[in-house]
């Protein structure tokens, strides 16, 4: 079955860890992930500047590795990302900021990508709040 997974909270929210474990189980069961869509505070998970203490799980890093290993389509909502300060090279230049901080493997795009994913998929599971 084809899934879209949306992540709505920042990387230290338990729901973002839960989303990752769920996504891993989706693939392990032989299902397909059409797209992972990062929205609202979920876009902060795609920041390349997060520094996690050594005695704590780095869920953002685990998400990035999971996306890379499985060549997943990881879309970060551009409007939500701009207002939370997560910029790729193009946006950083456009708005005259020194430094892009979107981690590798993520791409900024519009909400249309969420709907496009839903049209291809059969299930949407959102992970937000705590």
């Amino acid at each position, binding site marked *: 079955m084809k899934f879209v997974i949306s992540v709505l909270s920042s990387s230290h929210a338990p729901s973002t860890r839960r989303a990752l474990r769920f996504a891993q189980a989706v693939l392990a069961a032989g299902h397909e992930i059409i797209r992972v869509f990062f929205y*609202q505070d979920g876009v902060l998970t795609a920041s390349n500047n997060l520094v996690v203490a050594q005695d704590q799980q780095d869920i953002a890093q685990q998400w990035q590795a999971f996306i890379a290993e499985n060549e997943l389509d990881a879309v970060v909502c551009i409007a*939500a990302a701009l207002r939370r300060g997560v910029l790729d090279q193009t946006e950083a230049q456009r708005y005259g900021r020194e430094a892009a901080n979107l981690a590798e493997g993520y791409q900024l795009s519009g909400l249309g990508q969420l709907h496009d994913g*839903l049209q291809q998929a059969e299930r949407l599971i*959102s992970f937000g709040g705590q």
Partner: protein
Amino acid sequence: MAKSVLLISRQAPWAGIAAAEALDIALAAGAFDLPLSILFMDDGVLQLLDQQQPLALQQKDLSANLQALPMFGIEQLYVAQHCLTERGLAESTLVMTAERLDDQQIQQLIREYDYVVTL
């Protein structure tokens, strides 16, 4: 046939950008001509209340976005009656025509869509 989405909007228009970001999902669906309806529930019903003055907080008027919905082909708005009542708004004027649903009608509504997005 395009798959349909029921957006359940539960956030007050005053709770930062959460309500606006939920509404953006609806506007994006409209732009792609996809079938989407909105159910306002919990504090989300406050988005529909008339005569509010976001300018008092130097805030953008969310009701302008709401009123753009029909232009985007989104005609079906619903509101949970019990949430209006709980907030003393049972008799209030709403900015948009929204069908008032009781609990059972909401149960029925949810079953009619391919996806539910609650924000």
